[in-house]
């Protein structure tokens, strides 16, 4: 957490090892529901960090907190030492770009136009400039176009620049979304399930693409369900379960962690009546204990949940990843 970093505006390639993203105690509540509970996460430059967790664990909510779609109820998010503004378009300007879980391209714009829209924060021409069309306007447009074509070439879509983005095949739409995000010259790229719906070849290609993005000096935070993909790709992996960060570490550490396996398979509650019974009994005991000690309910149920996950039979990590492969 250095304070003398370059201004957020620059969003340029940062020195390796520098903390790019620093989320501290991020909590997001929707009414009574706590979707994300006090999650800490740092991403350093030149690093690919994975975020995994079962469906409904709060991964996308956490992403939305990072990109300003939601304002976290508690906690703060810093990008290169500066607290993020509360508006999503300002966050993009500071240097965080994202893709969406369900592809959200501008489907009736061409591929090139999509990327040009991504350049919005890095260009300045307003309405007057557009109406008067001075030399500066033409220069900026030409520059934007050249940069956009470069990015399309980078993701391998330059030959389809004039196609409508809605007419691209699914895998290419994902690529285009990444190119559009890269067009804002981010220091950190957030990818929300970049391989969802892809076949193995496309997934491999996406892997290559993300490595190439990392090599450009852009830090990447990626949500994914495809375990083989995640463990191949990421330097560090964090596992989110029921809104809380369960474990964080290298791919091998997370892969071998029993709690992660249990969270994914949900063994104690499904298909193992014995464990469920144990859990029930323990929950009842905990509740009784809570009554006597006049403790609040969340504190009481937490140890119970802890106990049940530890009771789960430890499946080997390999089988977990197989389970989640497509």
């Amino acid at each position, binding site marked *: 957490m250095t304070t003398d970093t370059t201004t957020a505006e620059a969003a340029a390639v940062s020195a390796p090892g520098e903390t790019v993203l620093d989320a501290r105690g991020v909590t997001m509540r929707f009414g009574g529901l706590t979707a994300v509970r006090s999650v800490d996460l740092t991403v350093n430059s030149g690093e690919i960090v994975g975020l995994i967790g079962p469906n409904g664990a709060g991964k996308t909510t956490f992403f939305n907190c990072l990109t300003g779609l939601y304002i976290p109820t508690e906690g703060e998010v810093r990008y290169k030492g500066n607290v993020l503004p509360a508006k999503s378009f300002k966050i993009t300007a500071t240097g965080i770009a994202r893709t969406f879980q369900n592809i959200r391209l501008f489907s009736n714009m061409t591929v090139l136009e999509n990327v040009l*829209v991504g350049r919005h924060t890095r260009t300045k021409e307003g309405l007057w400039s557009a109406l008067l069309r001075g030399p500066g306007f033409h220069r900026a447009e030409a520059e934007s176009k050249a940069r956009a074509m470069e990015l399309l070439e980078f993701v391998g879509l330059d030959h389809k620049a004039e196609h409508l983005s809605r007419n691209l095949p699914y895998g290419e739409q994902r690529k285009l979304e990444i190119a559009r995000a890269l067009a804002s010259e981010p220091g950190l790229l957030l990818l929300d399930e970049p391989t969802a719906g892809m076949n193995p070849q496309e997934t491999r290609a996406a892997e290559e693409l993300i490595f190439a993005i990392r090599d450009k000096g852009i830090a990447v935070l990626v949500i994914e369900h495809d375990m083989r993909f995640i463990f191949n790709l990421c330097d560090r992996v964090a596992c989110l379960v029921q809104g809380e960060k369960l474990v964080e570490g290298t791919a091998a550490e997370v892969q071998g962690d029993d709690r992660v396996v249990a969270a994914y398979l949900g063994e104690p509650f499904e298909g193992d009546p014995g464990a469920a019974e144990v859990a029930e009994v323990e929950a009842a005991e905990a509740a009784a204990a809570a009554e006597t000690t006049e403790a609040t309910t969340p504190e009481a149920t937490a140890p119970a949940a802890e106990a049940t996950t530890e009771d789960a039979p430890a499946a080997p990590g390999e089988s977990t990843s197989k389970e989640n492969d497509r």
Partner: protein
Amino acid sequence: MTTTQTTTVTAPAPATPATRGSLLPPHIARATATAGGALTVVSAFLAWTWTSAFPGDLTVYGYPGGLQWLVLVSGALLTLFGLSSYGIKGLNWLTPQGADPAIRLAAYAAFATAWFTIGAISTKLGGAVNLEPGAYVALAATLIGWLGARSLPYERPETSPADPDDSAFDQFKHNLSNRWSVYKGTLATTPAPPAKTLPSYIEILIVAVVLALGLAVFTYGITTEYDQLFIGFLITAGFGFAAIQKAGLIQRVSTLTARHRNVTLVGAFVAAAAFPFTQSDDQYATIGVNILIFATVALGLNIVVGLAGLLDLGYVAFLGVGAYAAALVSGSPTSPLGIQLPFWQAILVGATASMVFGVLIGAPTLRLRGDYLAIVTLGFGEIFRIAVLNLDGTSGPDVTNGSNGISSIPNLTMFGFDFGATHTIAGFTIGRFANYFFLMLLVTLVVVVVFRRSAESRIGRAWVAIREDETAAEAMGINGFRTKLIAFALGATLAGLAGAVQAHVTYTVTPEQYQFAHAVPPNSAFLLAAVVLGGMGTISGPLVGGALLFLIPAKLQFMSDYQLFAFGLALVLLMRFRPEGLIANRRRQLEFHEKDEAPATLTKAGA
């Protein structure tokens, strides 16, 4: 269960002959259609009725009159397409996309126009007894052409018969949709081969000829003197335009205009400016200038609705603000301000006032999306009218003179040129409305340039991005509220420009001119309809839509009672069969008509 039944029944369906329902073998059909066309042309030169009581004088042998001209044009079109279908050298260029659909539509045009004309004669003069032999020739000729065109071969699309288990209504619906798909099959075109590259000056010449033709058609439509002729014009123009489009000529021309955009723009304005010179008096220049005002405001609305996707139902209020602001400083004796600014200042005052109102109304409302925005803008439109109505010195401060409005707005004088007087330029008489027509044309030019330049820039892309997906646009760093506010304010400013001219054209501004729905355009409902009808996001779309929406009510006075009904019906039909509008931009054409090419968007349930 039902599916298996249908599939078993479907099997014999393709066995039906491809030309079922046709009476003639293909080569005879083609000859018949062409001959029918030629005969139609001849029949237009005959006398159709004995008395000149029917307008247009159809009694002369050897010279067509009135509606006969329209029949002549559609017959000639049919003949030309027919000859072109034989591959006659020199006529091939007429039908790059295949001649048969064009022949069909041209035959419909000839048939509908001729039969309508003769029907109108019989009705007007009281019976078929008033027809001369020429009329029967025309009836027969167009019928022959139609039968020939009907029998042309086409690829019959596969249809499935209705499920006998369905209710009668469902079967009826199914058969109807089958028939519709067969009908569409008869008009299916083959993709045109790439056009030969011509020297640049020839291409520009072609564009010029097309523009001149456009001016001629438009002038003919605007100067039609009686209802029957205008209806005949609509029939011929509608079918004829469809035929030309199916032939692929429109596509050819639009590639040319796209290649020479500036030439086209300049040419179109020269053509428009030539309109008053085709007139001997001011009678139709009035319609011309009103069409321009209406179409220009519609184009301004197209920025808000077509580009930024903000449904604004109170847009006419900005026209009103501009008109009132300009009227207040016009030196009108009923204006409480009592000052007279030169026009360039007045138009700036009008535009600025509209912009200020645009920002004031936009700032609170643009935080809403979709339906809510529409409702709120509708409300603000009414607030404007009622506020103006009440600023009369009794209910509120005296600013607008209430329901009497600001009247006797003096005519403009610029550089010693009196807009109210009739001038003679190079032997042509240019009346008051023609003067304003030229002035308004300048404003239209400004609006067109503003539209084009802003649409093709960073800000224009941001508007379209917001229309497509506001959340994603914000994630790309676009300040949604600010961008929308710019669109709203720009649209308002352009309406204000038009309003400042309108105040002077109409002498008087009253609150009743600026309602949501009203029998006379411009009003918010008609403006929106002009944009939707013409084609959202295009420049020529609102101009064409505006011209049609103004011209049809102005010309067909006899149906003024049913005008809104007919208008609603037309809008429903258009949205059903051509949702992208009369003039579609590439994007929307793809959006509505290439469903099969759209990729399946796989959504995955996830965290």
